[in-house]
């Protein structure tokens, strides 16, 4: 188990493994997203209150779920990198940030598009949208701290501390936003956890969430490969890869 783990953490092995993993993640992701989209956009019935407008949840919910998941993944990777001094973990954390920020932005945009038919306005200071907005700021803070350092080692460790501080704060921010919103609007109508959602509407959502998650993992593997290659630029295996040889022979 441990030898396998350390082998995985060695850059050339990871580079090779992640490379062969990418198609196994991205093709199923595409398949699931196509099935989920068909289920959500064609097969599921229209909502009796919201009509067809609700169908954007098939993008909004997976995006907002992943925006949080990616942050947690990033913080866990950063923590592993900080405690056990594993460089690969820092590379994973660094690669998570832009993906997470993109999912957060997607959740915000789809939330706003949904808001137009629901509230008649694109923006409402509603707890979920507000939380997503704050989360976007957390991602921006992380990425700009990361880019502020010249020394990669320092940048890795400093941004790891920030990610850990952020992940402790995410639930606090979430609950205080809920509390704050409850104060103004009375009990807020939660759009997402509707009391009972019909099975016809539910299964495409679950399929989409799974598809988005695989898509995230596939993109993450691709980004980490690039990140590792950049970090190991001077090593022999990376030079060999760049010249087109297989990293296996070089590693």
């Amino acid at each position, binding site marked *: 188990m441990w030898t396998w783990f350390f082998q995985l953490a060695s850059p050339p092995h990871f580079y090779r493994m992640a490379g062969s993993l990418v198609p196994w993640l991205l093709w199923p992701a595409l398949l699931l997203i196509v099935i989920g989209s068909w289920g959500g956009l064609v097969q599921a019935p229209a909502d009796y209150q919201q009509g067809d407008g609700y169908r954007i949840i098939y993008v909004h919910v997976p995006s907002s779920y992943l925006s949080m998941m990616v942050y947690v993944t990033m913080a866990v990777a950063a923590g592993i990198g*900080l405690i056990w001094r594993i460089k690969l973990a820092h590379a994973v954390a660094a690669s998570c940030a832009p993906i997470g920020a993109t999912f957060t932005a997607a959740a915000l945009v789809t939330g706003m598009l949904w808001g137009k038919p629901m509230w008649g306005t694109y923006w409402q200071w509603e707890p979920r949208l507000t939380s997503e907005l*704050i989360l976007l*700021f*957390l991602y*921006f*803070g*992380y990425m*700009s*701290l990361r880019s*502020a*350092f010249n020394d990669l*080692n*320092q940048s890795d*460790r*400093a941004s790891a*501390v*920030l990610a*850990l*501080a*952020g992940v*402790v*704060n995410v639930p*606090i*921010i979430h609950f*205080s*936003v809920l*509390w*704050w919103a409850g*104060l103004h609007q009375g009990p807020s109508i939660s759009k997402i956890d509707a009391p009972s959602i019909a099975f016809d509407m539910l299964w495409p959502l679950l399929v989409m969430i799974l598809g988005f998650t695989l898509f995230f993992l596939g993109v993450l593997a691709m980004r980490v490969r690039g990140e590792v290659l950049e970090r190991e630029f001077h090593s022999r295996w990376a030079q060999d890869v760049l010249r087109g040889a297989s990293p296996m022979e070089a590693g």
Partner: protein
Amino acid sequence: MNLGLGNLFWVVLQRDLLVAMRRWSDICNPVIFFVLVVALFPLALNPRAEFLRALAPGVLWIAALLAALLSLNQLFRADIEDGTMEQLLTLPYPLGLVILAKTLAHWLVTGLPVVVVAPLLAITYHLPADAIGILLLSLLIGTPTLSLLGSIGAALTAGLRQSGVLLALMVGPLMLPVLMLGARATDIALSGDDPTGPLYLLGALLALALSLAPPAAAMAIRISAD
């Protein structure tokens, strides 16, 4: 070495206060900035009494948060530049305690004056006396939390040349719960309801920050000084 931990805390605190006393602008600038921001709103918006009263909790809290963000940049910077931090880092004592003493000194010098001046400014916003009391209390519990959260960001950016905006961008979102709770508590008192709920939550956040922020900032300052 023969120095108790309480003594260590006191020695560091005393020295930081002494240094601050010799640099008056460090003490005055944040509180002057606070007054300035609060004075901007009636000028830019509308000086009608009932309008200002509704605005007061939010405006005073935002101004306090901005004053805290601006002053935090200096928390560890001078120590890193003049080599004091190297000495503190090689002490055979827990670094978190040293950081806590420095953060407390920083709050006493920059945060406390803001808390003291806030009730005076609240009067110019026509806030009733009981709401002013709650405002004072919420600032007294909330601004130390801001300083503690900020100490993490200040420690992370202490070695960087240009860090003012970066620090605000990093720490600002982390400070939002304190802002929401503090401003809301005053707001609730203004509308005549019982504000103890948010005040307790503010207290809980202070306790959490007291226990978690100093070790995190200590880890961060080791990285910055590397």
